[in-house]
């Protein structure tokens, strides 16, 4: 299902995984045998239907290709999981669940789990503009209060999720826990917003992964003075202890290769299109990309 031009959700039939999945876990997906292994957070699971829902943003080669290839009725080459340690759904009476952009999807199962525990759940969701808003209804079902934030104010309040979070903390002095999922810079800002109040803040980290089973250490992150592997020790960590600068620097280490892969794929697609077109019309000459 398309959520926007670049965001889409996949509902994958895997009854065994739907039974095993818990909030906070993720899967590793391969689209085809030559593909790479990409980690995607489990955004929802339905044990009765035996499905697991993934929300994907088409940002690079693999995710764009998935958007094209993964149509209803097709098979994934491989999906391993659920991976990572499930989130601890504690006994906090009042919690704030913050989701920024694509992070809105993975924070949903946590909000639902807290709701099922009987906690008062305040949802804070942030998007760039009203067109990108998704899952508002799903959140309204499990949240006692929902604060929607958009950068341009086209829906909800105008501002970043941290503005929404501050609002929530002002109105609810009894907030005992904050869960924040989104881009690293957003999670860091949320952790900084709660630090002066001493409120426990859990973030879900998204470092680069290969196997997702603790075998390579590609996903290592610094938490406090320790090195932890996000795939087997996380992905949830204490937001006040995470070294976000380190995480951001490691996330950028394949930027060149990522662009190259996308470029290569784009040209391959163009060639395929041209090959089809060749049958119909004479090949154009001197065509620029």
């Amino acid at each position, binding site marked *: 299902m398309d959520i926007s031009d670049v965001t889409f959700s996949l509902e994958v039939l895997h009854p*065994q995984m739907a039974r095993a999945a818990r909030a906070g*876990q993720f899967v590793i997906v391969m689209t085809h045998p030559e593909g790479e292994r990409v980690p995607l957070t489990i955004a929802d699971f339905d044990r009765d239907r035996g499905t697991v829902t993934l929300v994907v943003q088409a940002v690079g080669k693999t995710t764009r290709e998935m958007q094209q290839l993964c149509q209803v009725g097709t098979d994934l080459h491989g999906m391993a999981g659920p991976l990572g340690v499930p989130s601890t759904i504690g006994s906090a009476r009042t919690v704030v669940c913050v989701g920024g952009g694509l992070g809105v999807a993975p924070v949903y199962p946590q909000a639902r789990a807290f709701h099922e525990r009987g906690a008062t759940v305040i949802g804070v969701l942030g998007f760039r503009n009203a067109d990108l808003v998704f899952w508002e209804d799903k959140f309204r079902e499990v949240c006692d209060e929902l604060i929607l934030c958009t950068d341009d104010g086209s829906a909800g309040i105008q501002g970043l999720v941290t503005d929404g979070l501050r609002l929530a903390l002002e109105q609810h002095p009894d907030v005992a826990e904050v869960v924040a999922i989104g881009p690293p810079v957003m999670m860091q800002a949320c952790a900084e917003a709660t630090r002066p109040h001493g409120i426990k803040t859990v973030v879900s980290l998204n470092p680069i992964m290969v*196997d997702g089973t603790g*075998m390579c250490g590609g996903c290592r992150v610094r938490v406090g003075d320790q*090195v932890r592997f996000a795939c*087997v020790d996380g992905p949830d960590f204490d937001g006040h202890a995470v070294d976000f600068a380190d995480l951001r*620097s490691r996330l950028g280490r394949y930027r060149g290769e990522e662009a190259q892969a996308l470029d290569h794929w784009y040209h391959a697609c163009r060639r395929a299109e041209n090959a089809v077109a060749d049958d119909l019309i004479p090949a154009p000459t001197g065509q620029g990309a």
Partner: protein
Amino acid sequence: MAKRTIRSIPQDRTPVREQPAAERIGSFDEVNLGYDADEAAREAQRCLFCADAPCMSGCPVSVDIPEFIRKVSDKDVQGAYETIARTNLLPAVCGRVCPQESQCESVCTVGGALEPVAIGRLERYVGDLAISEGWSQRPYVVPTPYRVGIVGSGPAGMACAADLAKAGCQVTVFEALHLAGGVLRYGIPDFRLPNEVIDAEIAALERLGVEFRTNTVVGRLFTVEQMVDEMGFDAVFIGTGAGYPTMLGIPGDSLGGVLSANELLTRANLMKARDFPMHDTPIPLGTRVAVVGAGNTAMDAMRVCLRLGAESVQCVYRRSRAEAPARAEELHHAEQEGVEFHWLTNPVAVLDDGEGNVRGLRCQRMELGEPDESGRRRPVPVPGSEFALPCDQVVFAIGTNANPIIGQTSKLVLNRRGYLQVDDAFATSMVGVFAGGDIVTGAATVIEAMGAGRKAAASIKRHLGIRDTSLWYDDPEGARFGIAAHERNFVRLRLAEREPAYSAGPASGAPTVPSTSTAVTAR
């Protein structure tokens, strides 16, 4: 035939053809080209066929080495294959990756006066021919109703699966990655062990009826407890290995250009990042690479970096060449290919260029002091000897630990270092659950893992009450985890409840009688 003596046999070891170093670093093709029929026959003639066969005691699975070499010498290669296959399932793999110089070949009688017989190369010759000719050991299998689940498809799991399949069990192997083979697949590069060899060995297991389920992370998708309690497995073998890489814990460890050898090798071998962008996984490509460590993993990592186009590859090791744990042949190949070795050198920090990239490795010189508990001389730093080694990528190949997933998600008893605790029969603290290989011993060799898988398979057969005349029944009765002898056979009792018709079937006695005692005496 006249009695062979050291004097009457060919004096020199038959050399093996290899790709020249200059050519081979341009590709991932296998370096060692193996023997042809004449070379194999010539080398086989160097064996004295000693009556006491010391070589067999040097082999962790006791392959009948003189018998198979005699058959090679008689040009009965299929017979030789059958001899090996009685105890070793993967001759094409073991002939390539076993450290023979510290195993079978180290105790070869010929080796006392001349170079030892090239047992590994002969085994490989037989294994390769078996694959290309399609020979496989197809024993007559009597089906049993037992289902055995195997966690991990590395050498330990493959060996255990083969033995249990031959005993008639329905075997399912669960693998977390998308391809089976464990370290054979993701760790050992193609130029040492081509993928086709692994594919052939897995296909042979599938012909025996073993089912492989990839993308299945046991402990996450379902637990070991669930396998026994809910999924109907009568026994479980855990062979998940020791794949959790160790970082050195020095400043600069988390810089972008620092990675574990496991990550480098997984990207290059399993994910085929060397074919990027034809394959989607990228690989960090430094021009000057420093690899820390001098084991086989380090040699593989260095030689992979050379083939990926690194300008220089340097090995940094805190002990001297004599203590390097790598196989002699791999060390020699790495030297031939132009790896620069810094012996007695210990890294103390990874240097940052200010933008999160690696600029170099700060090292200190070491000298050898008194022997430590491992018997090797302990390296001690030379004061004031620090220097900077310029490089832009650092690879740590300094060892691995137990993977934590099984420990996190089951009640199995672990030892202090996080490995699974087993008794002498490879039984864990949970009835019906066995373990072997690196997850028990810590990182070791392929053949040791296979040996553990086979011994565990024998224990599982005994636990299930499958009589096997071959071996391992001299196992002590004592149950370290307090599992009584009759409990060890609970599966038989449970099956009797489940399916009364079956209980009368096997000839091994009434189902309510614990048959462990009979099995123990049956040799």
